[in-house]
């Protein structure tokens, strides 16, 4: 059965927050989704079908398609919409365990925060935003190194390292280069060691970018231009990309094509 996508109003958000504050015990308050006192319709009618997603990349891609008729600039900070979706998908974002109890995360994972330190950590908006901005290059940001249970609730280390700086996470050339360096060409998952603290890690990548920001603008660089000016500590990652290209050229092409 298809459900009408709506947005929670302030009362609906407050009642969902109350449910979370009380530990998300018992059935989730799904009545908030459609009751006129707690939610309101969108200007465009969108029908949603509940489905189980196998990972966050697939989730983001599906959201991008389903929300395609809405103006991205208008919905980007629509707290009511993203919070409605989090409640709608709550069983996948925060599934109940065998004992029926949910392992609840911070509230900003479910209710879109207006605080710049937290809003990119929302479990629904972020997969949509990354997929919309970067297409297949968002895979290494959204997928975990290994498959695991409850994939929609996992917000990885790499995303945490890059997501906090908007000029990095919104930049196509930067994320394209990071995806090339740090993705496994076959699976699209982050490569081992990418999220570490050593030389050439994603953490260092973000720091070096902030230094280069004073003298170069990656948005106007030719393909490969950013890679060319990265310091020597990234050579190991660059070499392994070249090696992977030689051994599996088709895989690289499929990863790098948006």
């Amino acid at each position, binding site marked *: 059965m298809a459900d009408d996508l709506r947005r929670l109003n302030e009362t609906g958000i407050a009642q969902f927050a109350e449910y979370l504050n009380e530990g998300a015990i018992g059935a989730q308050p799904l009545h908030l989704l459609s009751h006129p006192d707690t939610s309101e319709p969108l200007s465009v009618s969108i029908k949603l079908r509940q489905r189980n997603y196998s990972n966050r990349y697939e989730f983001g891609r599906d959201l991008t398609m389903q929300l395609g008729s809405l103006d991205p600039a208008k919905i*980007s*900070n629509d707290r009511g919409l993203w919070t409605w979706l989090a409640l709608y998908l709550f069983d996948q974002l925060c599934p109940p365990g065998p004992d029926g109890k949910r392992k609840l995360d911070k509230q900003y994972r479910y209710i879109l925060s207006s605080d710049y330190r937290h809003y990119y950590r929302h479990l629904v908006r972020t997969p949509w935003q990354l997929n919309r901005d970067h297409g297949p290059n968002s895979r290494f940001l959204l997928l975990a190194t290994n498959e695991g249970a409850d994939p929609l609730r996992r917000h990885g280390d790499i995303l945490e390292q890059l997501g906090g700086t908007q000029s990095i996470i*919104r930049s196509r050339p930067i994320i394209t280069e990071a995806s090339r360096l740090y993705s496994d060409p076959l699976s699209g998952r982050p490569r081992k060691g990418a999220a570490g603290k050593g030389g050439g890690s994603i953490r260092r990548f973000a720091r070096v970018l902030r230094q280069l920001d*004073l003298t*170069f*603008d990656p*948005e*106007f660089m*030719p393909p490969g231009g950013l890679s060319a000016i990265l310091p020597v500590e990234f050579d190991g990652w660059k070499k392994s990309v070249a090696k992977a290209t030689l051994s599996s050229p088709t895989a690289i092409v499929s990863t790098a094509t948006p």
Partner: protein
Amino acid sequence: MNSAKRRINSTGRKKISQDKIDLRILAAVPGEPIRAKLGLDLESLGLPESAAVSVEAYHHSTAMRFDCGSVGAKKIPEIFSLNELDQAGGVLFRVKIVDREIQQGKILASADRVRPSIEGEHMGRKSIFPVEYRDLGQEVWRVDIDDDAGPFLLLNSKIPALMHRIHENPLVAGALLPAAFRIVLLHIAYNPSEDDEDGAGWKADWKRFCSEGLGVDDDPGDLEDDDARNVWVTDVVRCYCETKAFVEKARQMTPAEQTHG
């Protein structure tokens, strides 16, 4: 001792001076994002016509970028709608001119940390404590201090004519302004280092105001311990209140003015 962040200009980047940039934040509309307007004069800088003009607005780690055409054919949006920026503080801008021919992506000229003027602020007179209107929920006012941008006094945009009430009613002004000043002064007292290498940053402006405007000569960078810092802050706030004579003016108000002003 004061220290400064040194910035090495290894690529020969030109500096776009502030007088070439007319940036203003437009009057706040409740429920709407911050909006800005930009005028840019690049005539005298000798930059290639083909170089790209790019403008970034930022606050904390949130940022928005606007591509504004080229030096020879500028396409500056009429209004910058800053909807993806953290709305709870003062906004800074960066203007960049980027090479698109010889070394693609190299920044040829830039103006960093450009603080916009606020609509209604007098031209050529920049406040050391600019006022901006934001949706602050149920908070009436807030001080936002960004190490780059300096302090902003944020007033709740949902309260009509709040700045007018502060100007007209010494009781409102006396309850709000010294408390807001104290927050900024405490920040300076405990973090006196100047971020700007030539000592022209916002802290220098505040220190000048304290010494020349209020007659408190101590440099907060020379204060030795927390007691001395707190005394300095208290002295400055006291001198500020004396200059403004909040209590004297409040005593002269009629009871009706005190209630409704």
